[in-house]
């Protein structure tokens, strides 16, 4: 069930203000111990879209939806940017595999570590990343 939708310009300055608005909506939907995961995954996903997917697209906009699930919430992020390679998320390194001295490249791993389900699809000219968070993490 759609709870709220947002649209921002694909600019890095728009990400943090959107995150704060997202978290106001998400807070009553998730346990306190899961909210950080929601916030962190959302920041990383949106930053990735802005800096990589929509880089150079001055007029691009990003749509973000929060959907309520019976046992948590989903965030759906839709953008018109460059699509990710196939299986990019599946093949992304886990945080344990990333060189501690790396100055970049942690974003996808952080999304995978925080979200319980990550689904990336490409439809028409739009990318859609859906992140699902359960209040009770599957063991």
């Amino acid at each position: 069930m759609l709870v709220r939708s947002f649209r921002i310009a694909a600019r890095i300055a728009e990400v943090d203000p959107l995150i704060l608005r997202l978290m106001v909506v998400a807070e009553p939907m998730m346990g306190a111990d899961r909210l950080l995961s929601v916030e962190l995954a959302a920041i990383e996903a949106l930053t990735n879209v802005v800096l990589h997917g929509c880089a150079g697209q001055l007029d691009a906009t990003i749509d973000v939806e929060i959907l309520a699930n019976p046992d948590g919430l989903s965030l759906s992020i839709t953008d018109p940017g460059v699509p990710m390679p196939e299986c990019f998320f599946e093949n992304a390194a886990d945080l344990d595999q990333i060189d501690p001295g790396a100055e970049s490249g942690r974003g996808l791993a952080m999304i995978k570590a925080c979200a319980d389900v990550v689904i990336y699809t490409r439809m028409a000219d739009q990318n859609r990343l859906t992140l699902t968070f359960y209040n009770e993490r599957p063991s």
Partner: protein
Amino acid sequence: MITTNYHADGICVIEPQFDRLTAANAEGFKTEVLALIQEGRTRFVIDFAGVSMVDSSGIGALVGLLKRVGNRGEIAISALSDNVAQIFRITRMDRVFKIFPDRQGALLSMDA
């Protein structure tokens, strides 16, 4: 973006003047601290009191600063909020940085 004050033995205490270290400001933060390193400062305490969020860009900036200081000096982190401490654990940065509950503990450790 940051304020600094200098402790005994030249330890520079950095106080971020923002509550979120993310892609929007990580590069600027790093640039300001790099300028201190280029001035010859090598020992830092970064006091995260008041910082509620650090994303991968912020982590990357901190790692970059640690690498720039290298063996010539050290960077200690203090006063992480519960959330930021969790982020450091998730990203394994608790194994990379010396982390202290408060500024004083960090300073005492560096003075030793």
